C-alpha cells in the first residue's frame, strides 16, 4: 500500500483540476482506499498521471543506425555510470537503450510508443524495447509502402489486403499501424517520390497515395484496432505542403486517424525563400473535425539527428545540408534515411519550423486533440520536452524567444499574435491523458481507481522548465522509481501488443510471395509473442 496525500491532483481523464485528494495504490493499481504502508506527503506539490509519448523513435534499426552515425555526440553528452541500480549508457541525440528509460522516467514519462517498426526489424526492435527499463512500451508497424499489401490494393482485393495487414500486425508484435509517405517510399526504390495524392504510385497500375490512406484508415476501423491509422503524410518538410496535408485529411473520409508530427506538414509558400507557417489552416481543420488527433512534432533549436522511413525527404535534406547521410532499403517493406541536423535560430526555415510547432499546440483549442512531441529525435530530443512546456505556459518567455529570431520572420508566422497560455490541466492532457486515449492504451494516463499507478509528482515551482525537468517523485506501477532526483528502482516495463482477427489461410498465401523475393527465411520472419518479454496481448475480434 502506498498513499499520496495533500497533493494537488490533475487528472483530466476524470475531470479533476487541481483538487487536493488522496491517492491509494495497491498492487500497481489505484484503489479506492486502504490502510498501512508508506505515505508520501505531497503537500505543496502537483500530482500528474505519468507522461505518455505518443510518437517517438527509441528502438530498432533506424535509431541504431543514427547512434552509429553520430559518435561525435557520444563524447560530449551526459554519461550514465554503472551503479547498483543502474546500467551504463549515454544520453544525447540518440540515447542508448538503458539511458532512454532513465531519461524518460527521470522526466516523469512512464509509457512510450515507438512509432515506426518495419516487420523485418521487429525482432530487433522488441529486443531493444525490452532493454529500455522502467517505461511501458508499444510500437507501430510500417505499412504504407509494403509491396505485398500494395499489390493486393492494386488488384482491388481489399479483404485480402486487410487480412495481410492483420497478419503483419501480429507478426511484428505491434499495437497499430503507421503510414509514412504513402507510396513515396515504394517509389523511392526507383529514385522517385509521391507528392500528389491522386497520381498512381510508380510501379503500380491503380494505387495512389490517396487510396492507400483511405484503405488503411478503413482497415484500422474494420480490424477494431485500439489506435487509429498513425499517419505521416506525403510531402513532409516541403514548402506549401499544407495543401497535401489537407487533401490527405479529406481522403480519410471521416475515418479516425492520428496525424504524426503535424508541424512538418503545415507550411505555406512556394519555395525555401517564401516558406511560411500555414498552421492556422491545419488547426482550423482539427478544430472542426473530431475524427482526428495529432502530435506537434515541435522543433527546438540545436543539434539533433533526423531519422525517418521517408527516404526521399532525407535525401533532399542531405542535399541541403551537405552533411552525413544514411539510407537503408528495407527489402519490400519500406526504407529509411538518417541525416544529422542542426536547427538554427538565425535560419529562416528553421525559425518558421520552431514557431509552427508551438502554433499548432496553441491554435488547436482542445488539448485532447494535440499532444506534446518533438518526433524524437527529429525535431529535438525527448528530454527537452520541459523547454516546450515553458514556451507553452509563459507567453512572456515566448515573446522573449521571438525577439531573438530574425525580424523578417514576423510576416511568416502567427506566433507573435497568440497569447494563449497552457494551464497545468492542459499540460496534463497534452502530455498524458490525451495521448493515452489516442493510443487506446488501457489504464494509462489517468489517476482513476483501477488504472495503472503511474504517477509523477512535481514540486511547485515558478521556473517551469526546472519543475518539469526534475520531478520530486516518479511512481511506475506503484513502485517509486525516482525520488529526490535519484533513480531508486529500475523495474522492467511491459509491452502492449494487439492481435486482430486474421484469416487462418493468410500465412499460406503470404509464404510463397515472401519466399520469392525476400532474403531471409519465412520461418524467421514473424516475431513469436513468447519472444517478447512481459508482453500484454490484447485480442481484438473484427468489427461487426
Amino acid at each position, binding site marked *: 500500500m502506498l498513499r499520496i496525500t495533500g497533493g494537488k491532483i490533475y487528472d483530466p481523464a476524470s475531470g479533476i483540476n487541481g483538487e487536493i485528494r488522496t491517492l491509494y495504490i495497491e498492487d500497481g493499481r489505484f484503489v479506492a482506499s486502504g490502510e498501512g504502508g508508506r505515505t508520501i506527503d505531497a503537500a505543496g506539490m502537483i500530482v500528474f498521471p505519468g507522461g505518455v509519448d505518443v510518437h517517438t523513435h527509441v528502438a530498432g534499426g533506424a535509431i541504431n543506425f543514427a547512434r552509429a*552515425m*553520430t559518435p*561525435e555526440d557520444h563524447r560530449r553528452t551526459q554519461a550514465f555510470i554503472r551503479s547498483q541500480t543502474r546500467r551504463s549508457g549515454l544520453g544525447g541525440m540518440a540515447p542508448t537503450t538503458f539511458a532512454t528509460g532513465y531519461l524518460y522516467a527521470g522526466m516523469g514519462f512512464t509509457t512510450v510508443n515507438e512509432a515506426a517498426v518495419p516487420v523485418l526489424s521487429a525482432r530487433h526492435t522488441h529486443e531493444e524495447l525490452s532493454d529500455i527499463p522502467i517505461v511501458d512500451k508499444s510500437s507501430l508497424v510500417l505499412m504504407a509502402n509494403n509491396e505485398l499489401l500494395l499489390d493486393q490494393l492494386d488488384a482491388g482485393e481489399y479483404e485480402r489486403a486487410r487480412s495481410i495487414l492483420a497478419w503483419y500486425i501480429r507478426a511484428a508484435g505491434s499495437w497499430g499501424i503507421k503510414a509514412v509517405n504513402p507510396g513515396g517510399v515504394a517509389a523511392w526504390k526507383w529514385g522517385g517520390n509521391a507528392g500528389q495524392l491522386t497520381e498512381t504510385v510508380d510501379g503500380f497500375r491503380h494505387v495512389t497515395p490517396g487510396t492507400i490512406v483511405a484503405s488503411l484508415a478503413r482497415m484500422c476501423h474494420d480490424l477494431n484496432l485500439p489506435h487509429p491509422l498513425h499517419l505521416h503524410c506525403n510531402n513532409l518538410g516541403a514548402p506549401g505542403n499544407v495543401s497535401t496535408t489537407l487533401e490527405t485529411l479529406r481522403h480519410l473520409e471521416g475515418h479516425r486517424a492520428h496525424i504524426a508530427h503535424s508541424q512538418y506538414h503545415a507550411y505555406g509558400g512556394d519555395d525555401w525563400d517564401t516558406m511560411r507557417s500555414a498552421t492556422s489552416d491545419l488547426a482550423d481543420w482539427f478544430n472542426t473535425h473530431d475524427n482526428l488527433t495529432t502530435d506537434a512534432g515541435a522543433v527546438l533549436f540545436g543539434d539533433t539527428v533526423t531519422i525517418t522511413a521517408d527516404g526521399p525527404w532525407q535525401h533532399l535534406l542531405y542535399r541541403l545540408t551537405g552533411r552525413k547521410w544514411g539510407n537503408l532499403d528495407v527489402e519490400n517493406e519500406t526504407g529509411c534515411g538518417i541525416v544529422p541536423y542542426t536547427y538554427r535560430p538565425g535560419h529562416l526555415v528553421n525559425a518558421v519550423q520552431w514557431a509552427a510547432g508551438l502554433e499548432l499546440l496553441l491554435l488547436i483549442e482542445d488539448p485532447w486533440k494535440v499532444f506534446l512531441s518533438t518526433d524524437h529525435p527529429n525535431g529535438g530530443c525527448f528530454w527537452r520536452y520541459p523547454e516546450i512546456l515553458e514556451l507553452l505556459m509563459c507567453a512572456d518567455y515566448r515573446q522573449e524567444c521571438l525577439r531573438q529570431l530574425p525580424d523578417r520572420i514576423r510576416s511568416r508566422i502567427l506566433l507573435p499574435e497568440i497569447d494563449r497560455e497552457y494551464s497545468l490541466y492542459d499540460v496534463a492532457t497534452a502530455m498524458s491523458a490525451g495521448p493515452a486515449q489516442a493510443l487506446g492504451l488501457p489504464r494509462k494516463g489517468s489517476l482513476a481507481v483501477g488504472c495503472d499507478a503511474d504517477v509523477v509528482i512535481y514540486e511547485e515551482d515558478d521556473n517551469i522548465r526546472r519543475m518539469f525537468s526534475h520531478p520530486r517523485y516518479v511512481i511506475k506501477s506503484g513502485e517509486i522509481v525516482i525520488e529526490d532526483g535519484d533513480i531508486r528502482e529500475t523495474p522492467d516495463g511491459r509491452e502492449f501488443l494487439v492481435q486482430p482477427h486474421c484469416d487462418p489461410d493468410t500465412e499460406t498465401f503470404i509464404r510463397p510471395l515472401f519466399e520469392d523475393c525476400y532474403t531471409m527465411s519465412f520461418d524467421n520472419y514473424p516475431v513469436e509473442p513468447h519472444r517478447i518479454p512481459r508482453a500484454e496481448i490484447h485480442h481484438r475480434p473484427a468489427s461487426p
Partner: protein
Amino acid sequence: MIRLTLKRPPAVPLEAEVLSPSLLAGLSHTEICGLHLYHGKRRMRVDEFFDVEGERSSTVDITGDLRRVRWLGRGMTDGTLTIHGSAGMHLGARMKGGRIEVFGNADDWVGAEMTNGLVRIHGHAGGQIGGAYRGSLRGMKNGTIIVEGTAGLEVGLRMRRGTIVIGGRVRDFCGLQMKGGTIILLDGAEIRTGAWMNRGTILSLRSLKLLPTFRFACYDNPTFIGVHARFLKPLGIRLPHAPTEGSWARYCGDFCVPGKGEIFIWHPAAAPEPAVSEL
C-alpha cells in the same frame, strides 16, 4: 605550483581529465587528492595514483611514466601544465586556452578539437594531432601545436583553423580533409599529404611526394609566410621566407574533392632543381 608524481604506471588506461590546471586552480590539497579518476572501469582517487604537493595554483607539474594516462589537460581554459615524462592519448583535447609543455613523447590525438592555447611536445607525437574525432566535422579551431620530433598518421585531420608545426618526419595522410589552418612540416612527410583537403595550407621545407590530384601553380614568396615566420620566431622555429633565401612552389588541390587547398614546398635559392616528384 601543484606537483603531481605518478606512484606506479597504471595497468590499464587511466582517464585523467580532472588533471587540468583550470580545474585544479581553485581546489585545496584535500580536494585534489579526493578527485576521481577511472582506472579502466574502476573509480579511484587521485592520491591512489599520484603524490600530490601544493594546492590552489594554475601551474601544474606532472612527473612519471604517463603513457597510459589519458585526457591530461582536457578542455583546460588557462594555466600551465608541464609534463616530465611521456603523456598518453588525448593530451589537451578540446583545450580552450593555456599552455601544455611535454618533456617527453605524446600519444595520439594531441590537441584534438582544441579551440585555443599552445601545446608543445619536445619529443615525438602520435597521429591525429589537432584532429576531428571520428564522426566530427571539424578538428582544431584555433591554437598552436608544436611537435619537435616525428608525428604519426592523419596529422591535422579535418582541422578548421590554427597552426601545427612538426619538426620531424610525418607519416601518411597529413592534413587529411583539412578545412583550414596551417600545417608546417620542417622535415617533410610520407605519402598522401593533403588528401581530400578542402582549404587550408600545408608548408613543407622538404620535398613531398604529391598526389596526382594536386597541380603545380607557380613559384612564389607570399607575404603570409613571412607573418607565420614572425609568429613562430619567439617559439624558436625558423621559417625561411625571404626571396633571397629561395622560393616556395605552390600546388593546388585536392582536385578530387574538389578543394581550394594549397601546398607550398620550399626551394632554397642554391638548389634551383625542382625537388618535387609530381605523380
